[in-house]
């Protein structure tokens, strides 16, 4: 069996793929109990009888999670079922406290949608969505002993803080006809879902923290022969690569699986229908448990939870809250703001789009808003190792700060000092300017006094200016700025110096 490349595999076979994306919702509490849904707490401190699966505990659905799931469904163009219900998915795994997961099976809340995905070159691909259903997350296993992985571990430790956290699982229909663009489409699809959940504000959408996770299903089938339609060629056996948790990894997982399966098929060996584990370090997959048939989970309606029957009025109300498609919004804003493609890409990559939009909405020019968020604030966020969105200040504060600069009350240097104060929690920009005494000094008597002192210290400067060396005034401006700790109005200082020299400004 000889190794193949992705490109070779795509020449020999027709790929079919599907993606399951799990979105962790950012509700305050879990799906079925009031335990906090917050990352990073001490193990097993956000648990209760419900999410530990203790006998007799009764789950109750989180209204906010239902709302988020419906909004996500609407953003994906799904129909919202008039009556949907939960089901128990039964299997044994230590991270599943109850030995079943509450999910949805035959009556998911959202079904039959479609999503436009824009590729880098502007090509639009429409992905058909099969369903988006609600379910609960599992706990976290830590494997101890061996190499630290699941293989060869001596035992495992389980933290159920994440158990019961609300998820929405979005399942595509099989995606065909993408050929060698399969990997690119897979990546762009997940990126679009991530952008949508962020725009909806229902999840922080951080793949690196696992709040958006993808499973990639891929199979290969022979290319249609002459006179045959590709649609008539049956699908091949598929693999399901679990927990591919970055956009780059999605592309690589498609590359690896396509090449692996093509090598097997060309060597006359079968592809086994199975779950595979993704390994980030080697960009490869290894077999996991073989894919259980659906009935092995023995789904049945969850008797402890009542059906979800959202009124049509509520659904329409929620439909009114759905933001513009992220790709359309990016194109519109780029146009409105007059940013270059490169500037826009940087803004999007820095997760600054919404911040800049909100700053502009608060009255700042797009250029000034971009300068703050992509300049000083990016630097601060980088120093603090946090996301821009996690900085303790609002777009409105930045707009206020820029307003102070525009009105001439502070200059850029003072604005940076004011920003420091705002970030340190000293108050609004205007409050910090007042409390730290940061206003530009344009009061002539104060400036004249400072100029005269500087001229006295450098007596030869006036003569130089009178000789026509006007640039010599720079030394005095510098001295005045230093004496006033940067708060002097530099233009006015220059005027006063030239007046003192008897030279026209």
């Amino acid at each position: 069996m000889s190794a193949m490349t992705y490109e070779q595999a795509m020449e020999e076979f027709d790929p079919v793929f599907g993606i399951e994306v799990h979105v962790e919702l950012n509700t305050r509490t879990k799906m079925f109990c009031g335990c906090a849904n917050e990352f990073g707490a001490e193990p097993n401190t956000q648990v209760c009888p419900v999410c530990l699966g203790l006998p007799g505990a009764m789950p109750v659905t989180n209204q906010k999670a239902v709302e988020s799931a419906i909004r996500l469904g609407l953003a994906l163009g799904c129909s919202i079922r008039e009556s949907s219900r939960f089901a128990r998915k039964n299997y044994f795994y230590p991270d599943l406290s109850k030995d079943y997961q509450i999910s949805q099976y035959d009556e998911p809340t959202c079904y039959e949608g479609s999503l436009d995905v824009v590729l880098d070159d502007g090509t639009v691909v429409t992905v058909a969505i099969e369903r988006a259903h609600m379910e609960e997350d599992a706990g976290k296993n830590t494997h101890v002993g061996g190499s630290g992985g699941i293989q060869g571990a001596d035992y495992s430790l389980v933290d159920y803080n994440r158990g019961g956290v609300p998820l929405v699982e979005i399942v595509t229909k099989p995606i065909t006809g993408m050929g060698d663009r399969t990997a690119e489409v897979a990546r762009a699809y997940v990126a679009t879902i991530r952008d949508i959940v962020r725009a909806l504000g229902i999840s922080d959408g951080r793949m690196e923290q696992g709040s958006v996770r993808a499973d990639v299903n891929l199979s290969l089938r022979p290319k249609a022969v002459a006179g045959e339609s590709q649609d008539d060629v049956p699908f091949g056996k598929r693999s399901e690569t679990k927990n591919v948790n970055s956009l780059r990894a999605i592309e690589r997982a498609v590359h690896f699986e396509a090449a692996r399966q093509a090598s097997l098929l060309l060597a006359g060996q079968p592809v086994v229908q199975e779950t595979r584990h993704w390994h980030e370090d080697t960009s490869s997959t290894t077999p996991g448990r073989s894919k259980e048939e659906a009935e092995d989970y023995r789904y049945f309606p969850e008797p402890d939870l009542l059906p979800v029957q959202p009124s049509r009025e509520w659904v329409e109300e929620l439909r009114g809250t759905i933001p513009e498609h992220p790709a359309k919004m990016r194109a519109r804003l780029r146009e409105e703001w007059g940013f270059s493609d490169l500037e826009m890409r940087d803004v999007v990559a820095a997760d600054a789009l919404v911040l800049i939009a909100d700053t502009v909405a608060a009255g700042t020019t797009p250029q000034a808003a971009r300068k703050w968020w992509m300049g000083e604030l990016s630097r601060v966020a980088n120093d603090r190792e946090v996301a821009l969105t996690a900085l303790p200040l609002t777009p409105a504060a930045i707009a206020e700060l820029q307003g102070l600069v525009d009105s001439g009350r502070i200059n850029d240097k003072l604005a940076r000092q004011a920003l420091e104060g705002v970030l340190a929690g000293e108050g609004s920009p205007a409050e910090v300017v007042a409390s730290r005494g940061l206003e530009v000094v344009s009061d002539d008597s104060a400036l004249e006094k400072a100029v005269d002192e500087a001229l006295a210290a450098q007596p030869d400067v006036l003569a130089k200016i009178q000789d026509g060396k006007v640039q010599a005034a720079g030394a005095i401006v510098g001295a005045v700025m230093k004496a006033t700790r940067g708060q002097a109005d530099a233009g006015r200082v220059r005027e006063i110096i030239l007046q003192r020299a008897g030279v026209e400004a």
Partner: protein
Amino acid sequence: MSSLERSDVARLAALARIDMTDADLDRLSGQLAVIVDAVAKVAEVAGEDVPATSHPIPMANIHREDVVRPSLAQDDALAAAPDAEEGRFRVPQILGEEA
């Protein structure tokens, strides 16, 4: 209506991690088949105009506000655990028992 086979019972027992001897399977597949057949009688009575019922009482939308309530203390959460370590439930190795 086909009844429950012995092999079905063996498979369900395996999925539910219940050890069953041959004698258990013989005895229980007979008993369970009687129960399943009895329940199946409902299908004979219900016409096509009667939808399958998962929740007999006509209630829906019993939701909870998204408000945090106190959780258990870690010690209490782990009190019934057969084994615990570093604030976590300790469980036997996972892959070893998988086929």
